[in-house]
């Protein structure tokens, strides 16, 4: 942990009681994000990445049980009094959800939704808040920002709505922005624009960012560090270039291979990962990925591999037969 670590997630566990038994959505996750850094969190649907973001924000469902520590700016968010937590949210800690059609209130104007955040945290008067809102909308690339204030979310296109959501998130100059699948609900052509916008604003404000996605292509080149999650655990964690060049987890390798490539021949079949993620209410004894892993041996099904670091301390993985090292061992 370095001195300018802004967020430190330590041993966070999220349990959800369900009629079919206890569901461990997040299984002892450890992460850090430095000020001004971008962390990418990658994984399939259901791997726990959204639950993790909710855990950090303390927005879990009522029934969920949360344990561990979430240190943000020197304070443990789990121990913080509700009123203090509320003041942090929106101000120092902001979030952008996946689908702007559902995350923006359909019966309130864009202006209201922007201005209320400004007035709540920065206590601006009406005129200043309006001016600020127009500036924010312009900054995120929305044309004719003054008119937008009186419009409703359904009057804007998907990409515009997400820009508004980003404007709301950035309005109080947060130290950390959590973007939970910000482009998944958008057209492919808009996706790059939104991601570029996020990256640009982050650099400008020297903001830390957590970019959550199921698409490895999204984090390539836009993040400093990547954590790969599977079945509620972080299974690989490395600086981004290292992850892409020297991945260790068979899962990561399979994820990368499943991405369509421009230089592949036409009609090349996409190698999908066979099988499905395990049922979270019935966790496997051994490695969660072992039923689908082509390198799996007996040990993988019995023991859970811990997160260890080979070579460089920054590159961690949870595997008994990591790629690269395994090959080097000559088997």
């Amino acid at each position: 942990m370095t001195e300018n670590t802004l967020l430190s997630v330590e041993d966070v566990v999220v349990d959800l009681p369900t009629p079919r038994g206890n569901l461990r959505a997040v299984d002892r996750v450890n992460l850090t994000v430095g000020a001004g850094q971008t962390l990418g969190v990658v994984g399939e649907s259901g791997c726990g990445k959204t639950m993790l973001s909710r855990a950090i924000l303390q927005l879990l469902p009522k029934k969920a049980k949360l344990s561990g520590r979430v240190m943000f700016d020197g304070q443990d968010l789990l121990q913080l009094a509700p009123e203090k937590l509320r003041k942090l949210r929106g101000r120092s800690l902001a979030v952008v959800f996946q689908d702007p059609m559902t995350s923006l209130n359909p019966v309130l104007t864009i202006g209201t939704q922007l201005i209320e955040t400004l007035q709540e945290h920065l206590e601006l008067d009406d005129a200043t808040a309006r001016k600020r809102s127009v500036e924010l909308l312009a900054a995120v690339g929305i044309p004719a920002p003054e008119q937008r204030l009186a419009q409703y979310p359904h009057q804007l296109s998907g990409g515009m709505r997400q820009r508004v959501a980003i404007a709301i998130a950035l309005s109080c100059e947060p130290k950390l922005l959590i973007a939970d699948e910000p482009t998944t609900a958008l057209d492919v052509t808009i996706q790059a624009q939104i991601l570029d916008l996020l990256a640009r604003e982050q650099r400008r404000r020297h903001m830390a960012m957590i970019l959550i996605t199921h698409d490895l292509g999204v984090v390539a080149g836009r993040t400093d560090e990547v954590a790969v999650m599977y079945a509620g655990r972080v299974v690989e964690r490395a600086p981004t270039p290292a992850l892409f060049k020297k991945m260790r987890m068979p899962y990561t390798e399979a994820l990368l291979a499943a991405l369509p490539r421009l230089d592949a021949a036409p009609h090349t079949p996409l190698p999908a990962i066979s099988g499905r993620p395990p049922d979270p209410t019935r966790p496997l004894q051994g490695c969660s990925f072992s039923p689908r892993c082509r390198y799996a041996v007996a040990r993988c099904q019995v023991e859970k591999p811990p997160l260890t670091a080979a070579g460089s301390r920054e590159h961690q993985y949870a595997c008994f037969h990591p790629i690269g090292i395994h090959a080097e061992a000559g088997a």
Partner: protein
Amino acid sequence: MATLELEVAEEAVTQPARKGRRLGMLFWAGIVWLVFVCAVAVFATVLPLPSPTDMDMLERRAPFSAEHWLGTDGLGRDELARLIYGARISLVVGVCAPVIGVVIGGALGMLAGYFRGRFESLVVGSMDVLLAFPPLILALAVTAYLGQSIFNLTLILGALSVPAFMRVARAATLTLARREFVIAAQALGATHARILLRELLPNVMLPLLAFFLLGVAVIIVVEGSLSFLGLGVPPPISSWGSMIGEGRESLDMAPRLAFLPAAAMFLTVLSFNLVGDTLRALTDPRQGAL
């Protein structure tokens, strides 16, 4: 801090089960009361009761006694007997009217939902016109023109309940008609009648039954209101409503004359509502409380 804390609600999945458990005891209590009332009403003639019409002018508004378990009313008639015979009337109207409604409304609704097109528009449109009137006003108006009798009353209330049952049947049919078992039956060459009767009807019956019970509760209240005003069952026939209306005169002297039939009516209506609502929650868990 703020006293209102927001807690995200439970998943919808757990709702019906919880509701069932919570209403479990109440549900059975309702069933017990209904069975009791219906039994007593049906067997009224063979029960060892004094006649409900025998007036005893010397014993008017008498308190509870061994001879008159629940006392006597303003004309010296035995209150318990009156309550039981009143139950007969209230229940006869209360049950027969919705039967008319469910048979006609259910049939119309199923046909409308199945055949769609102009027939459906016609049915829905005419029901809407019927619904354009506040029902009590309509019932009052028609009884005024046709004259008061149990038959007329049952007929009118039954007719007024047709739109509600039509809607339920139509909604259920609309969702069911698209399901595979109907398409499969059509592919096998089944006639419309067969599909309607063999495939759709058994499935539509469940929500209709739930609404039927709720309808009984409503009709008992409407008939009670009309009789309370003197415009429902024709005197000297007494339903609970008329008894409450008469009891109103004696509120200062003997409030029990109004409140005994009131309690009976309340318990019966509550029981029908409880049982009907539980059944509805079981057959359509998405719909929740209304």
